[in-house]
């Protein structure tokens, strides 16, 4: 710690702090433009100049100067003010005066400083630029005439996002920020530069001219897409979400967002949202009043329960409170067939974890990830499914020199990070590599084997998985594999990442167990700072597991329910916040289930492919229209807040479920979310220690920062041999979409409007395919047509297709395998 004096105030700060940080500590505000909390000091704007007693004769920039013992700092004096005013004049020499039409006006740092310094005249003369606006992309508009060259966009894109779109070009007065060859912005559109620009040089296009900052009501909520649980601050005007506001003060994400969080909100305001309940009459879905729809649904469900039973299938985007009500409804109906999100994906993962560690959640928290020494990511898709955690990994590498090892069948954003080591395997062999790494640790005596159960059986089961064998099988370099395993074992703090979702259902339980085995041998679970991160795909995947939205007793799981329904062994299906026909593996099976089942109720935002086949459709509310809590992939319980009213007569899932339970004779009712949350605590002990109203802006983490495993049991798992063919197809998540909801959001759609199949250059050349050509992909006896996308990511023989677009029919082909053997033709 270092002691110094700032404006006569004594302050003690850590020795890595800068003068600016120290001043902030004691509440002294030094004006800045180029400084940003999460970026490295840069010193571009020269606004923060201060006087330091020990460095007389010149002014010192506060944001780049580290503190030293006994420093005496003056932050305001006549001289300093004069210099700052001159800096302001320099900045305004070529700054266009279009504040009235600039969307930043009202929250512009430059405007605020100009007001503070009372800058109304300028001693210097210069030419105002008349550069064209960069409008080639649909989401981010760049007007370089307004730029003050603080470099925040350049730095955030490089340091945090790891994309590197921007750079300074030219010299002197002509300096400007440009993209490669000044061709205009074409990137992953996370919008981090938008949120960090202190002036109106980079602005969100969907928000252009929509409102002024002071008119907007801000509502802090949690993003409804992936399991990262980023805080999104909704900018609401007249009951409509107009934008997502920058907020780095609260939440786990430090103000970072991805394209889905920042531009994916538009589905909430979509015109095609369901606004009235629908009931099938004479083969047609017709709008009816709520009471009638509920009556029809209640009668249908209770009749079915008296017959062969009701299956309830929920998505993982309900709040914890709604899950609780849903479980109650299942009890009221009397059915054990309750499951969520395909059942086989995140549930499988949590079961694998449960067998090895005795817990059903990630053992660390995301902020800890940043200080890890070694990070092992299984599949490169982690960045695509959970982009903001990917940014944390990037920070760990850049700030703390972490070593990233990626076990992946294709390259991606993660493998491109600095010093990332990629163990590029043939598709579907991740499990073998994890087993081989475990074997390396055991054979070389690096494993921490104290207190591990089933060690001998595990050793025996691993005999096949020598690095050499696995290397031959998968194409990974054996030495690289061994070295990676050694690094993982040798690190003081290490992490293993594995993301899950509907397109990754194959061997999910086994893969989770293999990852947990490796984690146990490397001593990760329960060690402070380390963690095994198994992240669910949807906003509340973890909540669904915590609350046990799972088959009870002999109940059927999701896939079994659908199979049973298809065989006529289930009389009703109640599908909530899911579109199984579009997103579940094996569409024929799901369609058959929806066709054959006697009675079906679907509750969703849109008239999805599944809803079109239903007998009753309830219009539900989006995440922005309800109150409650989500539990994110690191066990953090956060408050979801209502920003707007639901369109038409749409109701929250909780309200619909309660109303339906009432119709079925359950008179239990709650006064609100807080009461339900308290009730959850009675069922789920981990939630009992928290009070709904005391969940603060950072949320609360159940089980503590490091979740201690309740058992240390090695479970032998063996890899399935993936099918062999000339071409293999893997499905997965694309960066721009999450699930099937985002295909209704104009932002993500603008970047990725339709399904595609991605192939490597080598394959493209062999097939004579160019970008945009239609390709016929056939496998599992089905042929579909997809647009080709050619790039460098995929090795020879591998195809990738994102699963978000139901109309592309990818799930006709994909039936839950790790890889699908396909044939490809033009």
């Amino acid at each position, binding site marked *: 710690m270092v002691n110094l004096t700032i404006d006569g105030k004594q302050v003690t700060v850590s020795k890595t702090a800068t003068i600016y940080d120290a001043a902030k500590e004691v509440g002294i505000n030094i004006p800045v433009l180029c400084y940003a909390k999460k970026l490295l000091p840069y010193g571009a704007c020269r606004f923060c100049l201060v006087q330091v007693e020990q460095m007389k004769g010149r002014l010192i920039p506060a944001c780049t100067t580290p503190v030293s013992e006994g420093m005496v700092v003056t932050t305001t004096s006549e001289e300093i003010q004069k210099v700052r005013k001159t800096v302001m004049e320099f900045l305004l020499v070529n700054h266009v005066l279009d504040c*009235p039409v600039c969307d930043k006006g009202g929250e512009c740092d430059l405007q605020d400083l100009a007001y503070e310094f009372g800058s109304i005249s300028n001693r210097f003369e210069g030419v105002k630029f008349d550069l064209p606006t960069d409008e080639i992309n649909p989401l981010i508009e760049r007007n370089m005439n307004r730029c003050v060259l603080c470099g925040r966009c350049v730095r955030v894109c490089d340091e945090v996002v790891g994309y590197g779109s921007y750079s300074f070009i030219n010299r002197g007065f002509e300096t400007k920020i440009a993209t490669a060859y000044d061709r205009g912005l074409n990137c992953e559109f996370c919008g981090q530069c938008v949120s960090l620009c202190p002036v109106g040089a980079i602005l969100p296009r969907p928000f252009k001219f929509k*409102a*002024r900052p002071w008119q907007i009501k801000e509502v802090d909520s949690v993003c409804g897409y992936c399991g990262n649980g980023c805080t999104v601050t909704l900018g609401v005007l007249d009951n409509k979400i107009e934008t997502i506001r920058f907020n780095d003060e609260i939440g786990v994400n430090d103000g970072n967002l991805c394209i889905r969080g920042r531009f994916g909100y538009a589905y909430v305001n979509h015109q095609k949202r369901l606004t009235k309940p629908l009931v099938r009459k004479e083969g047609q879905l017709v709008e009816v009043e709520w009471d009638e729809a509920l009556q029809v649904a209640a009668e249908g469900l209770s009749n079915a329960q008296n017959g062969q039973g009701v299956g309830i299938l929920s998505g993982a985007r309900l709040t914890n409170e709604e899950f609780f009500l849903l479980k109650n409804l299942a009890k009221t109906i009397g059915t054990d067939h309750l499951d969520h999100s395909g059942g086989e994906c995140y549930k499988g993962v949590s079961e694998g974890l449960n067998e090895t560690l005795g817990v059903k959640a990630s053992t660390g928290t995301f902020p800890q990830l940043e200080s890890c020494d070694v990070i092992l990511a299984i599949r490169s898709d982690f960045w695509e499914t959970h982009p903001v955690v990917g940014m944390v990994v990037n920070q760990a590498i850049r700030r703390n020199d972490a070593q990233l090892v990626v076990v992946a069948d294709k390259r991606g954003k993660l493998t491109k990070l600095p010093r990332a080591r990629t163990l590029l395997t043939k598709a579907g062999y991740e499990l073998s590599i994890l087993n081989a790494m475990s074997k390396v640790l055991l054979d070389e005596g690096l494993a921490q084997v104290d207190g591990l159960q089933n060690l001998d059986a595990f050793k025996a089961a691993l005999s096949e998985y020598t690095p050499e064998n696995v290397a031959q099988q998968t194409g990974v370099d054996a030495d690289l594999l061994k070295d990676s395993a050694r690094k993982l074992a040798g690190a003081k703090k290490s992490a293993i990442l594995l993301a899950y979702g509907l397109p990754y259902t194959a061997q999910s339980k086994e893969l989770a167990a293999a990852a947990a085995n490796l984690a146990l041998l490397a001593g990760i679970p329960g060690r402070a700072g380390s963690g095994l991160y198994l992240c669910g795909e949807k906003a509340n995947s973890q909540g669904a597991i915590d609350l046990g939205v799972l088959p009870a007793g002999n109940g059927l799981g999701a896939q079994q329910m659908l199979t049973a329904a298809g065989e006529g062994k289930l009389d009703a299906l109640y599908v909530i916040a899911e579109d199984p026909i579009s997103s579940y593996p094996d569409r024929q099976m799901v369609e058959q289930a929806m066709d054959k089942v006697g009675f079906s109720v679907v509750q969703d935002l849109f008239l999805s492919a599944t809803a079109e086949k239903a007998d009753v459709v309830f219009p539900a509310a989006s995440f922005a229209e309800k109150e409650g809590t989500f539990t994110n992939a690191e066990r953090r319980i956060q408050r979801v807040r209502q920003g707007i009213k639901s369109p038409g007569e749409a109701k929250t899932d909780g309200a619909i479920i309660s109303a339906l339970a009432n119709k079925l004779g359950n008179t239990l009712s709650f006064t609100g979310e807080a009461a339900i949350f308290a009730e959850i605590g009675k069922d789920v002990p981990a939630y009992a220690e928290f009070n709904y109203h005391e969940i603060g802006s950072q949320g609360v983490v159940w089980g503590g920062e490091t979740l201690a495993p309740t058992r240390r049991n090695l479970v032998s798992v063996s890899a399935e041999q993936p099918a062999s063919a000339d071409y293999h197809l893997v499905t997965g998540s694309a960066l721009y979409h999450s699930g099937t909801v985002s295909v209704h959001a104009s932002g993500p759609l603008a970047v990725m409007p339709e399904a595609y199949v991605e192939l490597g250059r080598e394959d493209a050349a062999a097939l004579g395919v160019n970008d945009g050509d239609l390709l016929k992909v056939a496998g599992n006896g089905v042929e579909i047509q997809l647009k080709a996308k050619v790039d460098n990511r995929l090795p020879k023989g591998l195809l990738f297709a994102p699963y978000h677009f139901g109309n592309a029919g990818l799930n006709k082909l994909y039936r839950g395998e790790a890889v699908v053997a396909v044939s490809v033709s033009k």
Partner: protein
Amino acid sequence: MFKAIAKGLSITFKHMLPGHSTTVQYPTVRLKMSDRYRGLHRLVPAQDREKCVACYLCPTVCPAKCITVESAENEKGEKYPKVYKIDMLRCIFCGYCVEACPVEALEMTDAYELANYRREDFEFTKERLLK
């Protein structure tokens, strides 16, 4: 004393003489208002559009909350007021809106005859304000 009374009354009587009256025969005769009189608003036109750039400063500063602005982008990519409305029934003619305008797109005229028969007629749309 009489002298003083006579002097005072002479002023009074002088006003009774023709040509010295302060009363005008409204509506046949009308006064010219002072230059700084705050009457009906007027949106100032520029060459092919209104000068207003829809910056929302006037509705923000308006104490009576009688101004409605909705901005949009025209075909040239400029910001313009798609809707500009003043509810004259609520307006208190304080002139803050004119003072706040950064582009001098709004001014106050000397029109003061604003009485009307229907409520809707007090709603001055952009077209009416541009006249």
